[in-house]
C-alpha cells in the first residue's frame, strides 16, 4: 500500500492512491472467493466487497503508532494498513509465511508492526481491548489512537455498550468505526435494531461525539477519520463514526442470500465505491485498466506466493500458547 502524505483534503494523486488500494482489496477478495469456492482455502471466509472505501479511508488517515482491531471481515483493513498481500494470502492458506504464521487465518489477522492488534471472530469481542489500549495511550501520554472496526450487528452486544460507556467516561484515545452495511449476517438492520438507520444515536446515548459518513465516498471517510483521530489524539475523548456502507456479497462465501431481494443486491451494486471514485477522478478505460492490471498482478503474485509457501509442522500447534 502506498504511503500517503496526509493533508486535510484528499485530492488528485492522493485519491488515485486510494483507488489503487481499493482495487487491490477488491481483486484480492475476488481471488480468495474464487480459490475458496475451488476448495483450496480452509476455514470460513467473509469478504467485504463493497466496503473498501471504509477500510482505505480510515486506515490511510491513521498515524504510524496508531493501532486497530478488526472483525471477521478483515482482509480490507489489513491490506489497507499496509500488510503485504503475500503475507495476507499466505495466512489464508494457513502457511508459515502468513502474517500470523498459520495460527490465525482469515478471521484472526494480526500484524502488530503495522498496528493491527487482531481481527476478531467474536462480534464485538475486540471493542473492550480497543478501549483499554486507548486508556493506556492516555495514561502514558502517548500521541496514539486505538481504532475499532465493527458492524451494525455488533451494536446490540454487551461489549459494545460497556466499551462506549467506559471510553466516554474515561475519555480514552479511541475511535469507534461502525461499518453499517445494514446486515447482521442474514438479519436486516430493521429486524435487529430500533435505530438501524441512524447508529449515531447509539453514540448519543453515551454522550459521545459522532459523525455520519457516506462510506462509499473514500474522500469523505478519510476526512471524517482524520477529524475523529485528531480529536481522540488530543485526549478530549473518543469519537464514533457512523459509516453507511453496502455489503455487495453474502455474509460468507457460499451464502446463497435467500434472505435478500434481487433489488437490494442491485442497489448495493449501484453503490460500488470503486466506480464512484473512478468517476470522480474522470479515469478513462486505459487509465483505469492500467491501475486494475497492477492490482491483479499483485494478487496473482500473492496467490503464487501462498500456494508455494510452507506448511507448518503439526506440532507447531503447541507453540505460542504462552509467552
Amino acid at each position, binding site marked *: 500500500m502506498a504511503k500517503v502524505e496526509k493533508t486535510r483534503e484528499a485530492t488528485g494523486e492522493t485519491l488515485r492512491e486510494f483507488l489503487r488500494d481499493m482495487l487491490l482489496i477488491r481483486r484480492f477478495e475476488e481471488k480468495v472467493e474464487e480459490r475458496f469456492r475451488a476448495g483450496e482455502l480452509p476455514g470460513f471466509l467473509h469478504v467485504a466487497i463493497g466496503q473498501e472505501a471504509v477500510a482505505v479511508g480510515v486506515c490511510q488517515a491513521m498515524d504510524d503508532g496508531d493501532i486497530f482491531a478488526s472483525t471477521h471481515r478483515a482482509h480490507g483493513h489489513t491490506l489497507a494498513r499496509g500488510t503485504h498481500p503475500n503475507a495476507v494470502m499466505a495466512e489464508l492458506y494457513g502457511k508459515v509465511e502468513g502474517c500470523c504464521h498459520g495460527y490465525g487465518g482469515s478471521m484472526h489477522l*494480526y500484524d502488530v508492526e503495522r498496528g493491527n492488534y487482531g481481527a476478531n471472530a467474536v462480534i464485538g*469481542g475486540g471493542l473492550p481491548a480497543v478501549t*483499554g489500549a486507548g486508556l493506556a*495511550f492516555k495514561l502514558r501520554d502517548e500521541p496514539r489512537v486505538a481504532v475499532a472496526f465493527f458492524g451494525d450487528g455488533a451494536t446490540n452486544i454487551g*461489549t459494545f455498550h460497556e466499551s462506549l460507556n467506559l471510553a466516554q467516561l474515561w475519555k480514552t484515545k479511541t475511535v469507534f468505526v461502525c461499518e453499517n452495511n445494514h446486515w447482521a449476517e442474514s438479519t436486516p438492520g430493521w429486524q435487529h435494531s430500533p435505530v438501524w438507520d441512524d447508529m449515531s444515536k447509539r453514540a448519543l446515548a453515551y454522550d459521545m461525539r459522532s459523525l455520519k459518513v457516506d462510506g462509499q465516498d473514500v474522500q469523505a471517510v478519510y476526512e471524517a477519520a482524520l477529524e475523529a483521530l485528531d480529536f481522540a489524539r488530543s485526549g478530549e475523548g473518543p469519537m464514533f463514526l457512523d459509516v453507511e456502507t453496502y455489503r455487495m456479497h453474502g455474509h460468507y462465501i457460499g451464502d446463497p442470500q435467500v434472505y435478500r431481494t434481487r433489488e437490494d443486491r442491485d442497489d448495493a451494486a449501484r453503490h460500488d465505491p470503486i466506480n464512484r471514485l473512478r468517476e470522480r477522478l474522470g479515469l478513462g478505460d486505459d487509465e483505469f485498466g492500467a491501475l486494475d492490471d497492477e492490482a491483479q498482478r499483485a494478487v496473482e503474485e500473492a496467490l503464487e506466493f501462498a500456494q508455494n509457501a510452507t506448511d507448518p509442522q503439526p506440532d507447531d500447534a503447541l507453540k505460542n500458547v504462552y509467552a
Partner: protein
Amino acid sequence: MPELTYREAVRDAIGAAMRADDDVFIMGEDIAEMGGSMGVTQGLLDEFGPERVRNTPISEMAIVGAGIGAAMAGMRPIVEIMYEDFLTLSLEQIVNQAAKHRYMSGGQVKVPLTIRTQGGAGWSPGAQHAQQLEAWLVHIPGLKVVFPSTPADVRGLLWSAIYDDNPTVFFEHRLLYPVKGEVPEQLEPIPLGKARVLREGTDVTVIATGPLVHRSLDAAKAADEEGISVEVVDPRTLQPLDEETLVASVKKTNRAVVAHEAVTRMGFGAEVAAVLQHEAFDWLDAPIERVGAKFAPLAFAPVMEQYVVPHAEDVLAAIRRTVGT
C-alpha cells in the same frame, strides 16, 4: 519475620508493584474510595491517585477487556472482579480474547494481565456469591491460574503474576483475608508453577488448595494423634501445575487425598487424581480420595451451606479411608 494478614499481603504486593513500575495500575468495581468490597485495596487511592486506582462501572466485560487492551499496548494492568461468580460475565473476554491473542497472532503479542478475584463459602451469601470456579479456568490453554492459601504465598505469587507476560487469573478466598502469617521482611517473588510442602509426613499425601489447605493441616494434626503421618502439599499455582512435586510426595507416602472447596465432580481434583494414577500407579496402595463440595449450589441457610462444603472432618475421614482405618 513480620506478620501480615492475607488481605494486607495482597495489598502489599499491589502497592509494591505500583511503586516499582508506572505501567502497573488497578481497576475494578468500588476499589478506590471504598477500598474494594473486601477492603483489600484500602489506602491505594491515597497513595497512587485516581488515574492508577480506577473505580469502574459495573461492566465486567469491559473491565477485563480494557485490561487486555492496556496489556497489549504495553502496560501491566491488574483488574479486580469483585466476586468470582461475576467472572462468568467476563468469561468471553478471558477465554476467547485474553487466552488466545498471543496464539492467534502467531506469537506477535503478549497479554500481561492479572485478573484478581475472590470467593468462597462461609458467609452465607447464597448461590451467586460464593462459588469456586477455578476448574473452569484451568481448562483453558493460554491462561495461568493461581490460588494461594497463605499471606506469604499470596504476596510472592501476586508479584509474579503481575510480572508474568501471560494473562493470569488469581483466586483469593474470602475466609483467608483475616488469616495472619509470617512473611519475609522484603517481598520475595515466588515463581508460578511451584508447589509447596506445608507439612511433611509418611503415610498419606493431602493435596489441597485455598481454605482446604488450612482444613487439611487441622486434619493432619488430628490424624497424627491416631498414628497416621500426613504430608500436606499446596500446588499454589493450578496452571501450570507442579506435577513433579505432587507425584514425588505420593511416591513417598503411597496414598493420596485431593481436597478443594469447589464441587468435587469434574473439579480440579479430578485432574490431579488422573495425573497421580498415571504417574504413580505402581506406588499407590489405595484408591485416591477426593474431598470437595457436594453437587449442589450453595444454599443461603447456614446449616445447608455448611453441609455442602468440605470441612477438616471430611479430609480426616478421607485420610482414614486411604489407610483403611
